[in-house]
């Protein structure tokens, strides 16, 4: 812990807590929340669980903001370059003099930015859930899981050691599992949480192998040392990893692609995306926090963290960008056909993450070519804000009409005014309409793609058009379209606790675009000049508006225009509606191929050979004991004959053998 980084924690009286402790408190406060609420919540804190967790998290959020303020404006910069600061580090497991799993905190622009994002969104979700989850039987459990998740995510972004990141990565997966399966009495929720966990765990296998390859060649697990050793062309480690190859691909590319696979699983990129729509079985605030704003961007964060190494391998970056753009287009097409609002938003998330990924993929290391990196991080930041807003707004709608299906909705703008306005702002933001946040971040992404790879640029442009179309399809179907018929007693919009996060997030979605991100976050830590090209941004804006008007034409008033178009695109529509049958394909592979070819023989072997062996030993023992049992027959004459035989035997023994 650095002594000279004394932070005055509160302006009024200086606590003199140094940076290390302040940073440690940020994840530890939600962890304390998890432990206390988990152990004692159900019995003692039924009503106060939410307030308690929210208070803990607000302190965490405050500390994060303070850290961000201090890092970006006070001490982070050294000669115009943002430094990677390690205020806390301690060695945990030492495998060999160079390789050890340390636990430490690494501060650099992306981790500080993520601290702010995670704690802020988590705080909004905590406040929102006070009203949304009110009256739930397991209210304290919910907040304890949220605390666990926040702790894990914060630990993930602050890790200074790749293995520590892996540990928190798994913890995040566990928290996601717990929260998706929160309504455990619903079989669909149980199936969904298992699916999420299994798919991400399977992807993490790749991640682990990647870690092992990287650490084997570079002899270290620490991020700074790893990056140092593998990014300088003259270093021996780089030479060895670049020259070692397997099936014609260098070990460096293998390692990076495997690590990326782990990230792709967590970020729900094609083809490991199948868990994300099902994860919508969890409560809506959970979807807002985990599956929109924070956990799913962990993969993007991972690539960003290892970006200097990624930029050494052209092939790995290509893989990243291809998977990214494919996911973006794929998800956008599917989202146009879905009818469950949460699933539309889930596919939208997948599409936007695809954007972030390919933006990283086309980025270079520094200077002008590093625009992709900055754009991806910027989009991550703004996406967190408006996607969380969209989900929370959807939650407000679901709370009002008690259903997720779009066909039950319509004309809700009279009943849910605040939700309506904030949802509209979020939709405008995601569609890239100026001056909202999405416009700025998307424009930078498209610019980066334009400078590097024209194919990707055209596909990305088309996708952004589709994005605005399906988002406004959603908007119009919910708030316009038909008149709403209230069943039963109509209760009003959710309480002010639900509205406050919506309003705050909408302010963020509106204003965040104006932050000059290039000044703070860039691939090499130096200032990135982001010039604003007016003529360049015409194309995306025009496409966005075209999407909005198409949606308006099809959905604002009740009509069968959408049905006619769907009918004319018949088979393609069916494909998209069934999500391109990817789930069915996975089912086929696991059920028909794996179960029958691998599972059944293995089970047969286990049951008959392994078990059979044990059973055979048991049966042998039984058989022998039955035989021995016969000695005690109760027949005196039998005893006598054994006796006689024994005596004769002994006599022979004594006389002839042992003289």
């Amino acid at each position, binding site marked *: 812990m650095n002594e000279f980084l004394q932070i005055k924690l509160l302006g009024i009286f200086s606590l003199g807590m140094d940076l290390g402790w302040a940073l440690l408190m940020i994840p530890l406060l939600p962890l304390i929340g998890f432990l206390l609420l988990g152990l004692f919540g159900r019995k003692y804190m039924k009503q106060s669980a939410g307030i308690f967790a929210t208070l803990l998290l607000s302190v965490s959020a405050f500390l994060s903001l303070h850290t961000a303020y201090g890092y970006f404006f006070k001490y982070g910069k050294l000669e115009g370059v943002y430094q990677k600061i390690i205020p806390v580090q301690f060695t945990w497991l030492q495998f060999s003099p160079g390789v050890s799993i340390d636990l430490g905190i690494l501060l650099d622009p992306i981790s500080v930015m993520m601290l702010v994002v995670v704690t802020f969104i988590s705080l909004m979700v905590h406040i929102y859930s006070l009203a949304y989850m009110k009256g739930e039987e397991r209210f304290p459990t919910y907040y304890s899981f949220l605390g666990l998740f926040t702790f894990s995510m914060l630990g993930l972004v602050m890790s200074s050691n790749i293995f520590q990141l892996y540990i928190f990565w798994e913890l995040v997966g566990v928290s996601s599992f717990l929260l998706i399966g929160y309504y455990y009495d619903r079989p669909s929720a149980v199936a969904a949480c298992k699916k999420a966990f299994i798919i991400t765990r399977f992807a993490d296998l790749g991640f682990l192998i990647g870690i092992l390859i990287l650490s084997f060649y570079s002899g270290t697990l620490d991020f700074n040392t790893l990056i140092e050793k593998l990014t300088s062309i003259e270093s021996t480690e780089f030479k060895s990893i670049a020259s070692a190859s397997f099936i014609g691909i260098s070990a460096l590319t293998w390692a990076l692609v495997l690590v990326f696979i782990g990230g792709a699983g967590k970020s729900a990129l094609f083809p490991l995306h199948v868990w994300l729509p099902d994860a919508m079985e969890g409560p809506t605030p959970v979807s807002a926090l985990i599956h929109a704003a924070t956990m799913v961007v962990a993969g993007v964060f991972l690539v960003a963290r290892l970006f200097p190494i990624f930029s050494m391998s052209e092939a790995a970056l290509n893989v990243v960008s291809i998977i990214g753009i494919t996911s973006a287009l794929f998800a956008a097409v599917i989202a146009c056909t879905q009818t469950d609002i949460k699933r539309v938003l889930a596919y939208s998330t997948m599409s936007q993450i695809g954007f972030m990924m390919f933006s990283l993929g086309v980025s270079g290391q520094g200077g002008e070519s590093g625009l992709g990196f900055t754009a991806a991080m910027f989009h991550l930041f703004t996406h967190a804000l408006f996607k969380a807003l969209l989900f929370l707004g959807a939650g407000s709608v679901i709370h009002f009409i008690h259903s997720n299906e779009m066909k039950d909705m319509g004309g809700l703008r009279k009943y849910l005014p605040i939700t309506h306005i904030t949802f509209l702002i979020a939709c405008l933001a995601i569609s890239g309409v100026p001056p909202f946040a999405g416009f700025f971040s998307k424009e930078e992404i498209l610019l980066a793609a334009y400078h590097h790879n024209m194919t990707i640029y055209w596909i990305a442009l088309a996708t952004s058009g589709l994005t605005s179309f399906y988002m406004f399809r959603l908007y119009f179907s919910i708030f316009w379209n038909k008149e709403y018929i209230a069943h039963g007693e109509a209760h009003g919009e959710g309480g002010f606790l639900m509205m406050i996060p919506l309003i705050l997030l909408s302010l963020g979605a509106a204003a965040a675009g104006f932050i000059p991100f290039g000044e703070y976050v860039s691939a090499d830590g130096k200032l990135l000049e982001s010039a604003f090209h007016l003529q360049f941004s015409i194309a995306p804006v025009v496409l966005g508006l075209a999407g909005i008007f198409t949606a308006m034409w099809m959905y604002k008033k009740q009509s069968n225009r959408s049905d006619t178009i769907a009918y004319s695109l018949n088979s393609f529509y069916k494909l998209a509606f069934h999500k391109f049958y990817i789930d069915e394909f996975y089912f086929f592979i696991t059920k028909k191929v794996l179960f029958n070819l691998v599972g059944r023989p293995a089970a047969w072997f286990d049951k008959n050979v392994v078990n059979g062996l044990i059973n055979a030993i048991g049966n042998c023992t039984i058989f022998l004991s039955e035989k021995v*049992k*016969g000695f*005690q*027959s*109760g*027949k*005196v*004459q039998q005893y*006598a*004959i054994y006796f*006689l035989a024994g005596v004769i035997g002994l006599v022979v023994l004594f006389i002839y053998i042992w003289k």
Partner: protein
Amino acid sequence: MMEPGLNHVLFISTALFFIGVFGFLTRRNLITMLMSIELVLNSVNINFVAFNKYLWPHKLDGLFFSIFVIAIAAAEAAVAIAIIINLYRSHQSIDVENTEDLKF
């Protein structure tokens, strides 16, 4: 034929012993088993007396041993008969095949 000596008498007693053993192992009736036991005991008696007469004629130990063996054999036969009668009362049979109650 030679003068019958110790060996001849021992032959008799050994043969009688093993006849008794054979009878004990083969017979199914408890009383006949008891009779075989008596044969065994008698063979032992002959042994003692023979050794006394041919090997140690200056002592009478063998003879006395035989006397005591006879006495004890009598007592044992009496007790055995009492047991057999008791068994007959409870099992209505003195076939040794029916006395397998102490089986596993």
